[in-house]
């Protein structure tokens, strides 16, 4: 019943899948560590005190609410003094793998055409749905406290509390809490997969010519997929990387040594990946 597969090709595919998964997990962990490092504990405390103030207002304890707001304001003043040029201070982060894009180029092409026509028809809801189906990335979402306005909101709430306007004060605090600014960083998964392909190719370049060629072809396909999904689509480096891979494929076929060119390619890939995965701040309307 449970026939075991002993086909070497299947085993190799399974190993590659496992390695891919491992590398993607590593990248996610890296993204999570980076995101957590940037969270500011003072700003987190200021948020907590804001919630304490709201709870105190709900319990009818105005004095306690004022004290919580004083503590929040104190923390925020320190933040403003420490980072006078900073607009946003990170208070929490989330990292998710979102991989909804199809692998099939024709299907992607179809979705891309549909996006263009729905945008053209101003059918933005459908366009949004279609655009979301072209996402393949490790997404880091950072929630930031806006330093330009948040401290003023705390002071305004304290003033309203002093005037006995508790409902208005609560509204100001709730509004401030619900208007954290979100910034996002996307690490394109196909590009990461191309990077993994090149890494694997480096490892087997001297021992397995066929395997190396297959991995290089996969890398080219992943690179093309990244571009098709619109990640820095117009970047001229795509063509350069594609050309570099093709050159190495030719060298592999000619039985030339490829260790050095592959290492250089890997370096280029890594720096391209980092550049493409740059921070994309959420833009105000």
């Amino acid at each position, binding site marked *: 019943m*449970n026939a075991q597969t002993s086909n070497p090709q299947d085993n190799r595919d399974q190993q590659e899948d496992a390695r891919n*998964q491992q590398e993607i997990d590593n990248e996610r962990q890296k993204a999570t560590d980076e995101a957590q490092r940037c969270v500011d504990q003072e700003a987190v405390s200021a948020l907590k005190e804001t919630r304490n103030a709201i709870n105190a207002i709900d319990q009818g304890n105005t004095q306690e609410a004022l004290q919580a707001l004083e503590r929040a304001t104190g923390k925020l003043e320190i933040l403003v003094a420490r980072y006078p040029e900073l607009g946003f201070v990170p208070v929490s982060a*989330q990292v*998710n*793998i*979102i991989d909804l894009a199809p692998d099939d180029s024709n299907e992607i092409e179809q979705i*891309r055409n549909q*996006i*263009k026509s729905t*945008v*053209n*028809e*101003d*059918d*933005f*809801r*459908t*366009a*949004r*749905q279609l*655009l*979301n189906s*072209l*996402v393949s990335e490790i*997404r880091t*979402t950072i929630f930031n406290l*806006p330093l330009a*306005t948040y401290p*003023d*909101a705390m002071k*305004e709430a304290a003033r*309203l509390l002093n005037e006995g306007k508790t409902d*208005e004060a609560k*509204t*100001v605090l709730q*509004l*401030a809490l*619900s*208007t*954290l*600014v*979100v910034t996002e960083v*996307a690490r394109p998964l196909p590009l990461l997969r191309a990077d993994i392909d090149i890494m694997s190719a480096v490892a087997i370049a001297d021992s397995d010519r066929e395997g190396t060629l297959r991995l290089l072809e996969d890398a080219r396909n992943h690179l093309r997929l990244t571009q098709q*999904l*619109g*990640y820095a*689509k*117009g970047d001229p480096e795509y063509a350069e990387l594609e050309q570099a891979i093709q050159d190495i494929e030719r060298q592999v076929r000619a039985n030339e040594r490829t260790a050095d060119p592959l290492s250089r390619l890997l370096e280029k890939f890594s720096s391209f990946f980092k550049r493409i995965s740059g921070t*994309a701040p*959420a*833009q*105000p*309307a």
Partner: protein
Amino acid sequence: MNQYHRFFRRLQVLFVGILFSSLLFIAPVHAVGSAAVSPERLNQLDTSLQQEIEKERQQATAEAESKLDREAIAAIEETKKAIAAIERGKTQEAIAALERATGKIDILVAQYPKLALIPVAAQVAIIDFAPQDFNLVERIRNQVKGVAIAEDFPAARELLNNLISEIRTAIVNLPLERYPDATKQAARLLNEGKIDEAKGVLQLALSTLVVTEQARPLPLVKAHTDLVTAVTLAEKDRDAAQRLLEDARAQLKLAQELGYARGDREYAAFDKAIKNLERQVKARENTAGAFAKLQEQFSSFFNRVSEVVKPGDSSNRAEARRRD
């Protein structure tokens, strides 16, 4: 407070999709004032608008909750228990949990053989990023078109988020076609001692729940509130009623500009009907009948525009399921 209100409105950026995995309910409320109404009426309208939005949000939440299937939720819980058991090295416990999950899903499949998606969680959020300024909306729309032609899809996604003004219901569904296979495959892998592979299969199954969405456009909620408030003021404050009707037309136009059923011919019919009302109010004519008719038409238009976006319509399926 208004200065914060305005500034924060510009900065509001809510996340929805990434929270789906945590299967939480969130419902932040951002109420927005109506620009065309005089200051003395503003507070009154703000309050009624907030109430209306809150009412709509509650209705959306109640509707979403009523569609959730307890058996499917239990199947997901059992899947999570199986993963936890695998992590503790308790293979037998994991297999038992998977048996329970599979049993529940098999019953669901037998019960609803035609159903592809079963709702297991829902989230209702008010997302209101869109500017009220038509020129700004126009500018963003042009930018969206530009980046779409250039195939800069990440930029298109971000720009389109700036045109959202809606109460969004997101329903997380268990795909009946694939989920049962995953739990069975995981059980087989566990029996073969392939613990990591089994865990991988289960984690993948949990991460591939299907999300469907429904959007209730906020400008339409606002237009409706304007109309209702205008009815109450028509007799005693004609000027205020006129301004509210004018604002209702502006909100309708905004809904259309933001792409909510943009090509729908009923927009023009409403614009005309409201203009007629404006004329009647000005001429001190009796408007009760016309208002009532308009409100009725408006409600059915609102329901139609607020239908689920995706073709994999979970709400319709849930309705169909109840009728089975």
